[in-house]
């Protein structure tokens, strides 16, 4: 492998010795955004280190997340936590005094939150990727799956303000960054979230009023431009 540049070595050393929180980040990653929203909600200071993902990945990233080589990675006093939902749970566990709590106290309510965050993880992003990567039957299947997923989430939300009930919580944090990708999914799939799931669309607007969310989310048009860039990168029409 290519030897580390002086800057890379410095980054690694500094992050390794650094007290406090560092997030290995990527500007448009909805998974990294989950972490930034949670940290912002709780008023926890965290340095964001933007990573190069389409080119050569940094030694720091490869060393911190050798299994997946992905962002986000949360470094806490130099120790790496990987996988966005694991990071959210870690933030809850490691900073028990930091309000608001993202998970409720009741074990069944916690289980519900974990179930739905897992559902979001399994169903939204990978399906969305198939929607822009594939054509013909593949795209049609992805479109149908995406609509079913969105309708299911809409039904689960019901007439509550947030998935967490009255309070913004774990599932809301897990899903809200992915709403920036809906515009591009709509364009590729030929549907409208507003028409199909007005409750979910309203929920997204409600979350967008929160400072933590407004500051972190990528504008949908920029996500769409990024997807067009990825399509060129993968040689998709």
């Amino acid at each position, binding site marked *: 492998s290519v030897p580390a540049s002086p800057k890379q070595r410095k980054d690694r050393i500094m992050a390794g010795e650094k007290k406090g929180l560092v997030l290995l980040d990527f500007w448009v990653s909805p998974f990294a955004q989950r972490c930034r929203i949670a940290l912002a909600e709780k008023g926890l200071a965290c340095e964001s280190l933007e990573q190069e993902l389409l080119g050569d990945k940094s030694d720091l990233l490869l060393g911190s997340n050798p299994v997946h080589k992905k962002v986000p990675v949360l470094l806490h006093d130099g120790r790496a936590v*990987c996988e966005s939902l694991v990071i959210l749970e870690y933030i809850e566990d490691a900073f028990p005094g930091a309000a608001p709590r993202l998970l409720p106290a009741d*074990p069944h309510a916690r289980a519900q939150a*974990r179930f739905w965050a897992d559902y979001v993880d399994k169903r939204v992003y990978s399906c969305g990727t198939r929607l822009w990567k594939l054509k013909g039957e593949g795209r049609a299947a992805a479109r149908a799956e995406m609509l079913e997923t969105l309708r*299911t989430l809409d039904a689960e939300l019901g007439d509550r303000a947030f998935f967490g009930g009255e309070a913004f919580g774990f599932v809301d944090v897990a899903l809200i960054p992915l709403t920036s990708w809906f515009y591009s999914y709509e364009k590729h799939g030929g549907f409208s979230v507003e028409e199909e799931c007005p409750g979910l669309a309203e929920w997204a607007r409600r979350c967008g009023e929160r400072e933590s969310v407004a500051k972190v989310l990528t504008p949908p048009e920029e996500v769409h431009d990024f997807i067009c860039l990825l399509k060129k990168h993968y040689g998709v029409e």
Partner: protein
Amino acid sequence: GKMAEPVKLIGTLASPFVHRAAAALRLKGVPYELILEDLQSKSELLLKHNPIHQKVPVVLHGDRAICESLVIMEYIDEAFDGPPLLPTDPYDRATARFWAQFLEQKCSRPFWLAMWLDAGEEQKGFVKEMKENLALLEGQLQGKKFFGGDSIGYLDVAACGSAHWIYAFEEVTGVSLMGENEFPALRRWGKEYTENESVKECLPARVQLVALFSAMKDKYKMITNGMLHQKKNN
């Protein structure tokens, strides 16, 4: 109180995911009723309580339903007193959760493809990938008795497939992943795991699993080889 309400586990005898729930309940000392499910003809009870995925296991605690085996394990740890399943230290908890997710995300598909694909370059590729995954798990044991240290816990139960089911699959398919001298820590850990008193009570016998997988062999091979070609055409 809530803890005293009856617990039911909807599941099958052969599923490692159902075993995760059963082992967690037994390790925690929680009595439960096992309700056997016929996955070829799903019950109203299952469909009512797991409408989204329509899968086992489902745990019913009083009138509360919990689905997804890892979610169930965390619920059992939090809803009941008894020895903790997850470590207490936040970083150790994150490590355990990370590796449990690793099993789902990185191992499930390559394992299935390594086992059931027709022999060839693709199948060899998945065997290689699975061995790399097993090496990572081996590395996590680092001379410890269990993944969390001296006591059995969440990650051991989550990884039960590698302790027991894997050997049954190898016997039926003839595909070797664990090898003779590879992964000594995983082999030793597998023995410790399967000999645990609580685990033994809800572990299907290897001969049972071998009989089941043998009976399903042609069907699994047909589905798996079909799946891969479908993916390629997309």
